[in-house]
């Protein structure tokens, strides 16, 4: 078999590889058979007799006080079993401890069309649905806040009282190094406004949850969740029963992409109703409801200012962002930091100032979607680099190569970088695409665009502060030779079960079929924080490796005694154990376990993983650190019709620094899936809203809460893809592995914009890129105007006094040099730049570009 994977460090790679038995080979995923036979049990496939079917009553207005909820018509229906209102679940929850702002069912106030305020349960889904519609709700409308601009100029009424400033949920200003001096050293300074529209994950499986009570204060919940541990915490907080009596089981997710990583109101509601009604309670959201659950990509406006020397190297960058957060916190505080945190991980950026603000608006809450907060600034950065290359007369690939970050360095914002395979990635896509021969030289209408990215392999810190492992694995072995592996990880389609199994199989020299997995069960499996932030392969991989190595060690000790050979001489391979120089004396693995079980009694081991501590010590330094970062480079080829602006993506070349591919087929699947999802966002997907006309209530409603209108790429929309994997064997990864599921999404959007520029000379500084934007640019070009389409202004935001952090190059220690928190109090009155609400509404803001 040809080994197509390219190695950064041949010697190290060969040394590791020579010992590997299964890792690195394209084996069938362990759940592959279940998935193609329909046996995989997704949450909605779990059925119990006597189930009560639950429907949520959702707000029909965007912002209002609840005056009255009348259940009388609903309760009169035959088959209705019970109801639930917010007062019965009075404790708030939320994924981040700093923004626990959700009630399972709204108490007093509803904050967006679709906000849940009551629940009804019935003997069938049909009856529950009819009963939910029969619930009469009386509202007292409040002012609707529909955009960041409106939030800025409408401090009252506050959507949440805990916001930093009026309806600005979170403000961040972090200054690393001497940005002003850096700008002065620059030969050219580029300043651009960008806009990145929000989008939904559109996982094909709608969220579903089913709960049953086992005692008066004991409950089990099956759910389509990426993070059973965090759901467990939310249930503990809201149900008022001890954590030890709540069990959350994560079913295999039918896709998630970040959309199932919050604890959700419907999960709490069915758990509560199961306890209240004494029978299983189940809810499966409709597609429309999934759009209300949302937690998708934040719409982000950006103002990006970067200084370049003539040689293309960067002297300083100042990035300002606004995030349209929707009605609740969700992961939003982290998302806000993420719109700035990873800008430094790809290229040398000696001085960097990041300002970010997230607004509360009366829309479904935004949260984490594949790439969490980083695709938006990555889009701006990579498009601006393309502009800089053209201004400076440097090839865009060459410009990036000149700016590459050194491996094993600490960035200006105190992120510890490990291996970097970006140079090899750029070279791969440049060669693959024939970049040098073709870039800038294709006929009018054809173009190539290049972009790069970096991404975390697991968030360095857990969601809530603690010193416990972020991933744990337990292994049970017995005389059968079967190895049972227990881990809280959650299979969301990415192949985490296969990674868990292959690491154990590799260490013990057994087949994947000799392993039984028990995963994602808070009662039975040790905690793993969940399938988010590309953390599973690295963290679960390490924990599994440690547990398996401890098991191997125990077995080896007993077998060595038994065979009277040195322990270290024993080899575990082909389901056997043998001294390295006496393979003919091999014993079956199961026999080795019998020897160990006889010697030590019942066998079991554990493994756990805690990431290394990051060097940053300033407030906000918790977002961005990771044990190691993946790198990607992409070239995209596009064909644009200059008459209509219609375009087609012809081909994508993607090279990804994966550290090591534990299963190349799974890894390639993640890379290809990232390209696909990136194209969806670049070309068509948008979670957009509109105001109904006055005569129809004037409410702010979702423009397209159905798959009929929310367009996503189909079979005919996918270009040809060529994927290269670069192995850097990072010492922080298990067997050298890094992530693959998010990083390769990031270059796609800017590569498309850059390719369109190469094709027709039009700059589109926002996504999704609609053909009419290109046409508008072409017309501007024809009329001698600037052929650029995108936001023309950036909102006037008072980000407050920045936190000053000296960089490693300045001799900093990772701590902040000042404490601006004290001066933050006067912020609201200090916002003298705020416009009047009416004026702001009249102005053509960037947010309205895609929402009218």
């Amino acid at each position, binding site marked *: *078999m*040809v*080994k*197509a*994977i390219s190695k950064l460090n041949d010697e190290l790679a060969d040394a590791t590889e020579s010992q590997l038995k299964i890792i690195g080979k*394209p084996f*069938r*995923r362990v*759940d*592959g*058979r*279940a*998935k*193609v*036979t*329909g*046996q*995989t049990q*997704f949450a*909605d496939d779990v*059925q119990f007799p006597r189930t009560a079917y639950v429907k949520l009553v959702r707000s029909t207005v965007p912002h209002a006080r609840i005056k009255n909820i009348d259940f009388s018509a609903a309760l009169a229906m035959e088959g209705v079993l019970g109801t639930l209102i917010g007062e019965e679940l009075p404790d708030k929850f939320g994924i981040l401890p700093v923004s626990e702002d959700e009630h399972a069912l709204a108490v007093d106030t509803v904050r967006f069309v679709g906000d849940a305020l009551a629940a009804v349960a019935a003997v069938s889904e049909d009856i529950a649905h009819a009963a939910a519609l029969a619930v009469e709700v009386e509202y007292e409308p409040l002012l609707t806040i529909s955009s960041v601009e409106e939030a800025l100029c409408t401090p009252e009424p506050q959507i949440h009282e805990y916001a930093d400033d009026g309806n600005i949920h979170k403000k961040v200003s972090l200054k690393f190094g001497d940005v002003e001096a850096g700008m002065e050293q620059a030969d050219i300074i580029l300043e651009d406004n960008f806009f990145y529209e929000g989008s939904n*994950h*559109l*996982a*094909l*499986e709608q969220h579903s949850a089913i709960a049953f009570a086992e005692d008066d204060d004991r409950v089990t919940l099956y759910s389509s969740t990426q993070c059973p541990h965090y759901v467990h915490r939310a249930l503990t907080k809201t149900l008022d029963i001890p954590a030890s009596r709540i069990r959350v089981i994560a079913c295999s997710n*039918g*896709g*998630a*992409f970040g959309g199932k990583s919050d604890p959700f109101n419907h999960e709490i509601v069915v758990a509560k109703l199961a306890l209240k009604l004494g029978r299983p309670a189940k809810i499966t959201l*409709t*597609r429309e409801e999934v759009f209300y659950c949302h937690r998708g990509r934040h719409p982000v406006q950006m103002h990006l200012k970067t200084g370049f020397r003539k040689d293309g190297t960067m002297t300083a960058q100042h990035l300002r962002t606004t995030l349209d957060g929707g009605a609740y916190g969700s992961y939003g505080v982290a998302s806000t930091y993420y719109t700035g945190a990873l800008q430094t991980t790809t290229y040398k950026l000696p001085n960097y100032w990041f300002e970010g603000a997230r607004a509360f608006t009366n829309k479904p809450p935004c949260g984490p979607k594949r790439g969490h907060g980083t695709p938006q600034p990555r889009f701006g950065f990579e498009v601006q680099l393309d502009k800089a290359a053209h201004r400076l007369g440097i090839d865009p690939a060459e410009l990036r190569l000149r700016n590459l970050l050194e491996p094993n360095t600490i960035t200006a914002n105190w992120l510890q970088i490990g291996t970097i395979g970006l140079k090899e990635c750029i*070279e791969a896509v440049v*060669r*693959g695409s024939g970049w040098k021969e073709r870039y800038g030289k294709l006929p009018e209408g054809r173009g190539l665009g290049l972009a790069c990215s970096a991404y975390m392999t697991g968030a360095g810190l857990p969601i809530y502060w603690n010193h416990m492992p972020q991933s744990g694995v337990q292994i049970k072995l017995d005389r059968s030779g079967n190895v049972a592996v227990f881990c809280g990880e959650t299979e*969301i*389609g*990415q*192949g985490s079960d296969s990674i868990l199994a292959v690491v154990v199989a590799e260490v013990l020299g057994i087949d994947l079929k000799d392993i039984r997995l028990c995963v994602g069960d808070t009662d039975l499996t040790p905690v793993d924080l969940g399938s988010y932030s590309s953390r599973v392969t690295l963290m679960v991989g390490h924990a599994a490796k440690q547990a398996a190595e401890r098991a191997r060690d125990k077995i080896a000790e007993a077998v060595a005694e038994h065979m009277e050979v040195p322990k270290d001489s024993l080899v575990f391979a082909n389901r056997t154990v043998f001294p390295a120089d006496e393979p003919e004396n091999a014993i079956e693995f199961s026999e080795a376990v019998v020897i160990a079980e006889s010697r030590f009694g019942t066998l079991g081991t554990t493994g756990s993983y805690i990431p290394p501590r990051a060097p940053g010590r300033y407030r906000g330094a918790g977002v961005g650190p990771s044990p190691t970062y993946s790198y990607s480079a992409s070239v995209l080829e596009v064909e644009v019709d200059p008459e209509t602006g219609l375009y087609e993506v012809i081909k994508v070349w993607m090279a990804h620094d994966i550290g090591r*591919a534990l299963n*190349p*087929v*799974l890894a*390639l*699947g993640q890379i*290809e*899936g990232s*390209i696909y*999802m990136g194209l969806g966002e670049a070309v068509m997907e948008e979670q957009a809203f509109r105001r109904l006309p006055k005569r129809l209530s004037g409410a702010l409603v979702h423009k397209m809460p*159905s*798959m*009929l209108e929310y367009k996503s790429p*189909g*079979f*005919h929309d*996918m270009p040809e*893809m*060529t*994927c*290269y994997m670069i192995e850097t064997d990072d010492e922080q990864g298990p067997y050298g592995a890094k992530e693959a599921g998010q990083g390769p999404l990031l270059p796609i959007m800017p590569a498309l914009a850059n390719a369109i520029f190469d094709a027709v000379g039009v700059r589109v500084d926002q996504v999704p890129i609609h053909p009419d934007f290109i046409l508008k640019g072409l017309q501007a070009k024809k009329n001698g105007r600037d052929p650029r389409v995108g936001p023309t202004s950036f909102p006037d935001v008072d980000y407050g006094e920045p936190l000053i952090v000296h960089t490693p190059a300045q001799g900093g220690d990772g701590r902040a040099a000042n404490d601006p928190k004290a001066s933050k109090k006067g912020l609201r009155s200090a916002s003298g730049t705020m416009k009047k609400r009416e004026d702001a509404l009249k102005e053509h803001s960037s947010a309205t570009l895609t929402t009218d």
Partner: protein
Amino acid sequence: MPPGIPDGMSAAVLKVNGEEYPVVFPSHHTLLEVLREECQLTGTKHGCELGECGACAVLVDGKPVLSCLQITTDVIGKSIRTVEGLQKGNDLHPLQETFADLGAAQCGYCTPGILMVAEALLENEPEPDNEQIAEALSGNICRCTGYHRIIEAVKWAAAKQRGDDWRPAEALFMGSEIPD
């Protein structure tokens, strides 16, 4: 209406995967609902409730049908096939094998619908090209794979069924070779 079956309910014997399923169900319920709830055949999935995603596709008399739009009472007496009927005994269907081996199923939620539509295609076209496969599957949405592996897996399964030893390019298993 048989005795004991109230208004608004229907009683029927459905023929699914060659077996008879006696079911009683609300007359307005779709085939998707009856398959999942009454027949307990939960391999067939739902994703959109309005015929856009293809997750619910099954075969009715050999033709792909979106079961979320199919009123059950109209298919009584017809031959219905679902993903549970693809296997022969304990042996996987070639489509199931190639989808599992090539990573054409990631989360696996769209997979049953896609397998059924692909099966209908292969019944009529033993050697489909990329465009024929894309056309046949254009009503199915997959959010995980980016579709290429699905097309290649269908071609691979078709080859296996023909007894041809064609298999997808090595690049799909190990990544592409970087040109010099």
